């Protein structure tokens, strides 16, 4: 087990290097330079000095090496456009808001999605099942910006219950996190239903029944625990989905998170900020994948050898 965890931890290092390289290569292809914007022409000498200051005059592999060094010492460099701020400052200010939004969305998804899946599985082919699965199919297909707009329209504007935009106290956080969490919720519900139905067929459930255990105990102790294992693997793709979703939700609800900042950074060609945010979100995914794999290795020992 320890060997498995160590192998898995070591494997993330080349992955992270690769992700940085990929972002780095892509970023170098973007035409234009933050110091060469026509609106604010800079003299060639000044430009040269600026490029030297930010190491833009070095060959690409030196820039890459410097950048990697920066990433692993938690220094993502200065912002190229907002001169008095570093990328670290920007991330420190905006990232926690996005993180909170994403985590709250996960809370909605888990708190409502799993019970929905369990109920649908236990009452298979009943009206509950069909109703819940219909809700889940629709919730999974509706774009989050429609959910968000409808929530703002009916809950905030018509009923006046919650604020329309901003990120100040808990009242501001309910609608955005719910709009973001709806699709993952629907996903969990379907996933848990499917794996619960499969688990209920297993021999050990029949054994438990034969032993005369109470149904409630069979469901909670024997069936639910095992049918949640596949849900663990869903966390990684869901995380990617939620990160994507925060871009949209932050724009709609005017939340000063990292996704909204990223979009402005791309248009102002703030390389270091764009790279910093892309690398950061990729790191979140890679680390989450690693944790999921290790968790899965603990929960289901059969997978330890197959995965590294």
């Amino acid at each position, binding site marked *: 087990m320890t060997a498995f965890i160590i192998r898995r931890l070591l494997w993330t290092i080349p992955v992270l290097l690769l992700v940085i390289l990929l972002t780095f290569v892509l970023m170098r292809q973007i035409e234009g330079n933050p110091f060469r914007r026509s609106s604010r022409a800079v003299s060639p000498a000044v430009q040269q000095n600026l490029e030297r200051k930010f190491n833009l005059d070095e060959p690409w592999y030196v820039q890459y090496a410097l950048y990697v060094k920066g990433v692993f010492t938690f220094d993502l460099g200065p912002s190229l456009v907002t001169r008095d701020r570093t990328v670290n400052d920007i991330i420190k200010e905006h990232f926690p808001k996005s993180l909170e939004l994403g985590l709250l969305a996960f809370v909605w998804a888990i708190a409502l999605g799993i019970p929905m899946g369990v109920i649908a599985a236990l009452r298979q082919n009943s009206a509950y099942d069909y109703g819940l699965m219909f809700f889940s199919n629709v919730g999974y297909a509706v*774009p989050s910006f429609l959910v968000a707009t409808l929530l703002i329209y009916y809950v905030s504007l018509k009923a006046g219950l919650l604020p329309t935009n901003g990120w100040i106290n808990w009242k501001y956080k309910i609608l955005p996190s719910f709009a973001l969490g709806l699709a993952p919720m629907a996903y969990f519900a379907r*996933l848990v239903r499917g794996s619960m139905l499969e688990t209920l067929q297993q021999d050990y459930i029949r054994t438990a029944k034969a032993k005369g255990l109470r149904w409630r105990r069979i469901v909670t102790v024997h069936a639910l625990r095992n049918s949640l294992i596949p849900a663990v*693997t869903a966390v990684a793709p869901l995380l990617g*989905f939620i990160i994507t979703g925060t871009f949209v939700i932050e*724009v709609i609800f005017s939340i000063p998170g990292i996704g909204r900042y990223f979009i402005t950074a791309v248009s102002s060609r703030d390389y270091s900020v764009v790279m910093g945010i892309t690398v950061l979100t*990729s790191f979140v995914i890679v680390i989450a994948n690693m944790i999921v794999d290790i968790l899965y290795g603990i929960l289901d020992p059969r997978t330890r050898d197959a995965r590294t």
Partner: protein
Amino acid sequence: MTLPANPRDAVATGTAAPDVVAGAGAQAGAPIEQANLWRDAWRRYIQNRGAVVAGAIFVAFVAFCVIWPIITPYDIHNDPVNFSQAYEGPSLKHPLGTDKLGKDLLTKLALGGRISIAIGIGATLTILLIGVVYGSIAGFAGGRLDNIQMRLLDALYGLPYLPFAIIVLAIIGTNNLWTMVIALSIASWFTAARIVRGQIITLKENDYVRAAKAVGARWYRVLTRHLLPNTLGILIIAIFLELPGVILGEAFLSFIGLGISPPDASLGSMAQEGREVYRVHPNVIAIPSIAIAVLVLCANFIADGMRDALDPRTRETKEH
């Protein structure tokens, strides 16, 4: 990267050989109706009511998008702007109302649907093409190369496609149909490659492949004649598995203002326009968004139905 269209994918990526049903029921004696894989699959598909309804709605919507702009009395791009008719509600003249320039929303919906579907299909096919090339190399070569390729996929798997799509759009500079296709496929082909590889590895063990190799068929003949044609079934399912994610991805990009450049508008760009006025005219954002939802929902159901039709074994666990 969006979610796989069906939670069951997270549990087991379908890698079953599609040829198990071919020839079933063939008995010696009088010629009987040939049990063809595709005919068999079709028969199973049309028994699935949800999938049939979804398929019909999908086809109807595509037909509407193709045909309506031809027969409509309105010309969105060339009709004069008429602010006195802006944001009208539904009427006989304009069944879905009008937009901020007084243009017919129904016609706009059809045009937007055209672009969204074109981008969706373009990106899906690109994703599958990359997936087939990458996956079949890995699956066919096996050994070291396969190992390296799969490690690479593991590394890239789950990366959020949106930042990469945004960077790609910034690199290319202009936003047209093709750049959207590239941006949407660049970081979304990982699942497709895995599916193809799995399929090729399963197929490789079949006796007819061994037989072909034994009689001295070259590797490219084995690949193109015996392996790739048998991945067709799973690729057709994969089209409808990838389509929802791509359509939603395009909508997201357009919604945050990185969509196709005006005057062309996809469903996502229409929703973005509607965002400006949703407090007063919620229908302007609701109409294109509902169209997106319907497309995505139908594609999910079609993918489910096709999987059950082409690979009946997966259905058994579901129906107990």
